[in-house]
């Protein structure tokens, strides 16, 4: 089984961007408000498919408040920035920038598979088409060598490019906006030290109408809330550091928070799990059945540091996140993230009734489970710590959608290997041995045995996944 708690998708997996990028093209800088003054209302929750325009009244109300706040920020921020920008020649600043670039997992998109570091070109398959991650080496003609620091900060924090063009939120600026200017300047200082690579990337490969970057103005209005993270004085310093990382650089919600039809975060369901790129990024709330309510702080730290703990082993996109990012963070930062994550209230769990063992599908699933799965995952679903993930009571197998389970049964998977847990165990593909109804039955059985309860899986779900896996690049 896999854990798909990833802030980042990898090319290997087939795509990197969560569903729903909004798209946006050039705009007239004079006609539109600058990024720093643009109102960025936060819409109230809405149902998938609900019309965007219907939300405008709420948006407008929010916008007035936000505009005032943003104006204040602008004033304060610019004055502060000029006075306090870190020395980009300082070793400490460059090293800090390297660390923050890891925390932000820049390399996941900006380094193509087999390509040179940060030279871009990695394809991001989105539901709207393909985007290529740009070259962010200091190369003058094709990288960001000619960008000013302010342009760089504006891109990271506000999704606005050097020519005031709008970036697509495959670049997770809705999260990076919470990072401090100091941290972003440090990242710039680090990027200035990497090998300049001449590699021209045409980022926007989207078809019409998604290739019109202007559309991002509207999207930003609806779903983008700019502003650096503000500490909550009622919480500990560790909690605040964790929140800064989880909601900022690590951009966990990019995968784990459900998206609406336009790809905006459904913030009232934050971290409740989401399907993307044929994976299910699971629920990270405090729910004990589907979330991480039963995990201790140390369990979370161990998972992020080594990719495994007594419950689970990361694979799929989360394996990439562990490899590129979290396994390199300091124990203090991982602990801070864990403390913040542990403080999320439960959500998205519900109380489903398990499918009865009298159901013929369950009986079929049990027979297949004994024959194909039990040798490793054990008859009682306990698994083997560090090797074969636990299925009994495991949140990952009880998510509202069985996307990841179906996928790993069909495709197999390889868990992450880290210095702390170098094994990297694998599960084989069963696509050639099990029919669609077989896979549906065994996954239904796993989701509803040993105290587990989750909606059953239909053979058509399996058929759709087979098709999707064949089509993925």
């Amino acid at each position, binding site marked *: 089984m896999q854990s798909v708690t990833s802030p980042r998708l990898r090319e290997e997996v087939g795509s990197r961007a969560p569903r729903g990028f909004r798209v946006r093209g050039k705009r007239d800088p004079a006609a539109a408000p600058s990024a720093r003054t643009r109102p960025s209302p936060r819409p109230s929750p809405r149902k998938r498919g609900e019309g965007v325009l219907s939300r405008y009244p709420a948006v407008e109300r929010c916008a007035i408040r936000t505009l005032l706040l943003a104006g204040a920020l602008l004033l304060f921020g610019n004055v502060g920035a000029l006075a306090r920008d870190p020395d980009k020649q300082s070793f400490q600043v460059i090293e800090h920038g390297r660390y923050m670039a890891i925390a932000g997992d820049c390399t996941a998109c900006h380094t193509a598979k087999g390509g040179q570091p940060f030279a871009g070109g990695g394809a991001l398959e989105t539901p709207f088409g393909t985007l290529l991650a740009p070259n962010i080496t200091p190369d003058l003609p094709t990288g960001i060598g000619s960008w000013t620091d302010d342009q760089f900060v504006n891109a990271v924090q506000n999704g606005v490019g050097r020519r005031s063009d709008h970036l697509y939120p495959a670049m997770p600026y809705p999260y990076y906006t919470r990072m401090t200017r100091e941290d972003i300047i440090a990242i710039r200082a680090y990027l200035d030290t990497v090998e300049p690579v001449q590699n021209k990337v045409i980022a926007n490969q989207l078809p019409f109408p998604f290739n019109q970057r202007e559309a991002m103005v509207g999207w930003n209005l609806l779903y983008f809330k700019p502003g650096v993270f503000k500490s909550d004085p009622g919480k500990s310093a560790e909690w605040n550091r964790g929140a800064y990382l989880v909601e900022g650089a690590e951009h966990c919600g990019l995968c784990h928070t459900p998206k609406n039809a336009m790809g905006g975060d459904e913030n009232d369901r934050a971290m409740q799990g989401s399907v993307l790129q044929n994976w299910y990024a699971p629920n990270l709330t405090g729910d004990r059945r589907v979330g991480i309510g039963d995990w201790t702080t140390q369990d979370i730290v161990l998972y992020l540091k080594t990719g495994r703990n007594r419950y689970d082993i990361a694979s799929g996109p989360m394996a990439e996140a562990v490899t590129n990012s979290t396994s390199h963070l300091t124990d203090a930062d991982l602990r801070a993230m864990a403390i913040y994550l542990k403080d999320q209230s439960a959500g998205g769990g519900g109380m489903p009734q398990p499918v009865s063992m009298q159901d013929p599908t369950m009986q079929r699933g049990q027979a297949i489970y004994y024959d194909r799965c039990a040798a490793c995952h054990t008859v009682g679903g306990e698994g083997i710590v560090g090797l074969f993930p636990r299925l009994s009571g495991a949140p990952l197998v009880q998510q509202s959608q069985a996307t990841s389970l179906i996928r790993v049964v069909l495709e197999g998977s390889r868990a992450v*290997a880290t210095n702390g847990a170098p094994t*990297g165990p*694998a599960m*084989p593909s069963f696509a050639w041995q099990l029919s669609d109804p077989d896979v549906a039955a065994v996954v239904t059985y796993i989701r509803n045995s040993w105290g587990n309860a989750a909606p059953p899986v239909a053979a058509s779900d399996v058929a759709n996944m087979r098709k999707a896996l064949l089509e993925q690049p």
Partner: protein
Amino acid sequence: MATKLPATDVVVIGLGWTGSIVAESMTAAGLNVVAIERGPWRDTATDFPPSYSPDELRYAVRLDLFVRTAQTTLTFRNNPRQTALPVREWGAFLLPNGVGGAGVHWNAETWRFLPSDFVLKTQLTQRYGAKFLPPDMTIQDYGVTYDELEPYYDKFEYLCGTSGTAGNLRGQKQPFGNPFEGPRSRPYPTPAQKQPYGPVLWAEAAKEMGYSPFPQPSGNLSQGYTNPLGVTLGPCTFCGFCERFGCGNYSKASPQITILPVLMRRANFEARTECEVTKINLDNTGKRATGVTYTDSQGREWEQPAEIVFLCAFQMFNVQLLLLSGIGQPYDVNTGEGVIGRNFSYQVTSSAQAFFDNKIFNTFIASGSIGMCIDEFNGDNFDHAPYGFVGGGYIGMVQTNARPIETTPVPPGTPKWGAAWKKAVRDNYLSTILPATHGSCYSYRDCYLDLDPTYKDRFGRPLMRLTFDFHENELKMSQFLTDRLAEIVQKMGPRQIVKLPRTGHCSIVPYQTTHTCGGAIMGIDPKTSALNRYLQSWDVHNLFVTGATNFPQNAGYNPTDTVAALTYWMLDAVHKQYLKNPGPLVHA
């Protein structure tokens, strides 16, 4: 013409068990290591997924993991008066190929030798007098003692997570373990595997007869285990597809499952697969290796210079490479002089097949090394004076498999095919057991390896020629062990027992074991050994040679634990002495 590559610190020839152990140890010390492996890359996830790895036809019948005879083979004869002919289809033993080597397809029986096995010549001469030994027997002491090796046995067993029941902890005998074993510094890392029905009944019978049965030590684990390198193994699932197969359940200790995940993460390690070393190069003094020459899969020749060379190929191929590289004096059977090729030994196995009417054993519930054994008749654990032979072996009911294609037990007299044969297989499949003996094989003057004068490999190099036969001493031993085994089996109440002791000449055709030994043996005298007690070549000080190739003679146990312990022993000397002061570690 070989293209010369940039120099590295260490070259490892062969990435099997000992090559992996050496590479892990040397990279941990910060040295740059290049391992050159004749066969393909193999790892658990991509090569042995449990959804297709239990394929008897592919792996057990067609021998997918082994070297192809078209790639290389050897010639065989029973004695120097015969003309050796090339082996064109593997039989008596199966030679490994590829990353993990024989560590991929072994059964994981993880035995220590007896303390007396390391001082065999001294022990037997003192106890029985020199005249008790056959005059052409060429056994020697190893040059290292059990007590010296104990920490390194321990190290390998903790790497593997070996499952077993200790019989001797720091000199204190322990119940349910092997009372004859040498002292262990601590218990096995994991408890013994659970035993199936047959071994349980066999052990009860052995106990009734006054013996001390104990579970065979197993590298197929009884429970999950994370080794000191941080790699995790799972419990064996008793699938019965172990020997000749890779393990996809992460439960059989192998280089893939215990070392390679860590080694492959190290930036100072590089493995070059499908590259065959053709020569160890020497400088103009002939006393120092300068590196190796190898040929890649496209036929291109490369020279890899190195400061230290570890020769870690399979036993037979270690000897071949030494001979082809002109290192050490080749053994001459006529004069008895020379060391390279000297003291080839093997293993003398036998069995007693037992057919039952009223018992269902389900022998397909099996792991590579599950079973109950006794050690009363191993090594010098018993007085040989009345019997007129030396040596011995463990006796046991070991249940490794009942795979459908090759497991067709029928009583003698059954037709070889047709309806009656099918009925007999059906009637006997579940109710037949095959307990076995695992006997020593001592060394003799006329058992040796040299280069074949006629047959050449695909590079035009002479093939290895094996001259070997069983000697009277070993055949007597096999008869004795088989009789003792049959007595125990008889107590279980079978309908019929068929004793199958080793008899007659050694045949290269039926499979026996892959425990070929010797040819570049360790010792204390450069006239009778190729390597000193630290496995360092007497002639070329920066060349070390590992494997069962080191054994002056073979004991009544499976060799891997001792092979690995000797490797760790060698590495300790390399780290503590050789790296600080390169040169001969022992002055002859």
